[in-house]
């Protein structure tokens, strides 16, 4: 069930990476920021987390688009571009962490939304997890449809295949990048709003989720939808088993170990395109 949310997290990083060749190191912090926003709306105004979700998504989109428009978009596209962009998102990551700490404190928070569980066919399904899973699937489906059927979505896919080719076809590259980064951050925010229903979060956890999202993308392969889902399920299951067998602390390092294993054994991921 957690796998669905992990999958959603990784879609955002996957999209941005595909389009820009850069990983957003602040991805996890967008997740945490949206989680805290959801928590705050719930605790203060008793707003249903599912209603808060679009608010978080809008916030993520705006922040992401601004980051791209005013910061990453201004990085000169030469050989040092990847390095500079990585460092820049690292800076953004700390801005977000600190902002979250100032606004919401450093404690762990969670939303107690729909405790209890449903019994279906002799199995117990925790209500909050099931809803989080369904919502994550719905958002993922919406993204798939967007990329597949709308012009903006097709432009994004074109840019991720070939920047020059897309440019020749008259696609506005900077604009497409702004939209992609905005959507990437919006997806992170959606994942964060769902995550806070399942786990307790704290501002310092952003890095951990950036790494998880990245690991899922690497396991599944860049640019692959089924890969992202499979990667998410593998990561979710491994963490749960590691938590059972050893301790919850071990679970935190699992993402990294899987990531390294896959990279050393099969660099293009389980479903990825072979780099040409």
């Amino acid at each position, binding site marked *: 069930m957690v796998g669905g949310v992990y999958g959603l997290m990784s879609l955002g990083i996957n999209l941005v*990476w595909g389009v820009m*060749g*850069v*990983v957003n*190191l602040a991805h996890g912090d967008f997740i945490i920021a949206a989680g805290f926003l959801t928590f705050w709306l719930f605790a203060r105004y008793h707003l249903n987390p599912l209603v808060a979700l679009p608010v978080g998504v809008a916030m993520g989109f705006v922040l992401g688009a601004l980051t791209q428009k005013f*910061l990453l978009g*201004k*990085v*000169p596209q030469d*050989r*040092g571009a*990847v*390095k*500079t962009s*990585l*460092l*820049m998102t*690292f*800076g*953004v*990551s*700390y*801005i*977000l*962490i*600190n*902002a979250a*700490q*100032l606004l919401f404190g450093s404690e762990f928070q969670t939303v107690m939304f729909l405790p209890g569980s449903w019994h279906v066919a002799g199995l117990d399904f925790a209500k909050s997890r099931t809803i989080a899973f369904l919502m994550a699937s719905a958002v993922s489906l919406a993204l798939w449809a967007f990329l597949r059927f709308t012009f903006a979505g097709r432009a994004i896919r074109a840019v991720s295949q070939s920047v020059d080719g897309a440019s020749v076809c008259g696609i506005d590259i900077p604009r497409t990048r702004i939209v992609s980064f905005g959507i990437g951050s919006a997806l992170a925010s959606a994942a964060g709003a769902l995550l806070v229903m399942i786990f307790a979060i704290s501002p*310092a956890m952003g*890095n*951990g989720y*950036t*790494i998880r999202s*990245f*690991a899922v993308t*690497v396991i599944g392969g860049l640019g692959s939808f089924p890969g992202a889902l499979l990667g998410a399920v593998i990561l979710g299951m491994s963490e749960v088993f590691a938590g059972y067998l*050893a*301790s919850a*602390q*071990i679970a*935190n*390092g699992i*993402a*990294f*170990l899987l*990531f*390294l294993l896959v*990279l*050393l054994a099969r660099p293009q991921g389980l479903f990825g395109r072979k780099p040409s």
Partner: protein
Amino acid sequence: MTRLEILVAAAAVAFVIAIPLFGSEYLVGFVFTTFLFVGMAYGWNLISGYTAYVSFGQVSFFGIGAYTVAILVTKLSFEWPLAVLVGAVAAAALAVPLGWAMLRLRGPYFALGMLGFVQVLQMVASAWTRLTNGGEGIYLPPAGSLRALYFGSAFLVAVGIAATSSIDRSAFGLRLRSIGEDEIAAEAMGVDTTRAKLLAFVIASAFPAVAGGLYAFRLSYVDPASAFPGSYEVQVILMAIFGGAGTVFGPLVGGVLLSTLGEALWARFAELHLFLFGLIIVVVLRYMPEGLIPRLRRLAASAAASGRKAAAR
């Protein structure tokens, strides 16, 4: 070296020695911390300034140094200078297999790999209770005086400057730069890139390890949170890029300027520390991506050129 350079170096050495002789405890502590950061910035600069491998995990060696020292001193009652040295050797020894695996990864893969490695070490430090005492941490006996530690940190900076300036002008430095420019082209030109970057990675790992060891003594306490401080990673990276990544004096200038500024201004806004660091990173990268020293050098060069033009007219 020109006469001016020798003069400046002599003045700097005299200044560094004068601080513990005449300065207050507070001043010595402040300069000590600054030197630790400058030393770490030199380490980061070697691997990430010269090549294109941006490491966000140098703090893992900082933690290794801190824990090695704590364990050696409490369990085997080592003297502190020896313990710090062993810490550096331990970090370098770990950096060999780690670098072998990590340096095959480029760009984002390497960056996130190192970021993840810090978390793994932090996890090991909290889970391996028999060795590290887990979340409770290890208390160290007080080690000598702050002044002795201070000279340790000054030594670290001196080694950083010496190593960087000799590498900067060597064939090894050129190899590293060529990896930073275009790794595939460098390989095609016959540069053994794997060897060069692994060597740089290993040397770079010793700096944060020494800093971590000295820091452990200053604090007299090591636990998983203080041994792997993410906030130090940002500060170190910021200092190196602010001064100028891939230059000999960039880390020193950036480190001293930002530390002083931090002590003067941000001590009042302790809560906003990380926010400001993140903001400055972003602003520096946006408006001065090459860093302060190359920027000043370029300004000086263009001023000299226009001066010459004016004189010719």
